[in-house]
């Protein structure tokens, strides 16, 4: 049954790739890639159980965190075209000098 679940999630990943390839806007693609990463975590865990080596869960934990950081980094890059800009809620006119290092 675990194997069936593994294949079901793999089918879901293939369908998500369709959305990532023909998504009309950039954000559709980022959404598809983010969801793809969540499914990758599940596949890693299930693969560990299928192969009888649940140590794969360590990699899955790491992948969860990396997936989040990657999504935020991609969004930040497409907003500011740079990784150097500090993430603030809204530009404060009093502290506008702090943005100049971007």
């Amino acid at each position: 049954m675990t194997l069936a679940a593994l294949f079901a999630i793999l089918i879901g990943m293939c369908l998500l790739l369709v959305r990532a390839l023909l998504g009309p806007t950039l954000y559709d693609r980022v959404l598809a890639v983010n969801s793809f990463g969540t499914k990758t975590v599940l596949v890693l865990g299930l693969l560990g159980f299928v192969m009888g080596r649940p140590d794969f869960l360590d990699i899955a934990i790491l992948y969860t965190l990396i997936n989040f950081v990657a999504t935020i980094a991609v969004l930040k890059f497409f907003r500011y075209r740079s990784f150097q800009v500090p993430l603030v809620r809204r530009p404060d006119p009093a502290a506008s000098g702090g943005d100049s290092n971007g």
Partner: protein
Amino acid sequence: MAEFFALLGNTWDVVRFPLGGAACLLGAILCIIGTIGVLRFPDFYTRVHAASITDTSGAGLVLLGMALMAPHWIIVVKVFCIIGFLLLTCATSSHALVNAAHTAGLQPKIGPMARSGHEEDEEDEH
């Protein structure tokens, strides 16, 4: 009393594997349903809702099934770490996505829509 608990433990050891497998399978099917929603829905903001099925109930059920099948308590701890991280980060990253799209000026479609999703998709391309 001790015999009763021993019997309970034995029954639990027999029952938890089919139960965990069923939870994994159900969660995987929910993942596919969420993906179908991502493919069908007409615009970006509605697709985020469909993707959040995968993130909450699909991933939650698959990981709970893994926790039921775990051979050692360490695995259970790791699975619950993954559940916690996944719930926190998925909500935050979908908010970041929607906020970025809204700031960039992508307008959501408002109001009832009854046509099938595929026709809308083709209109959307630009």
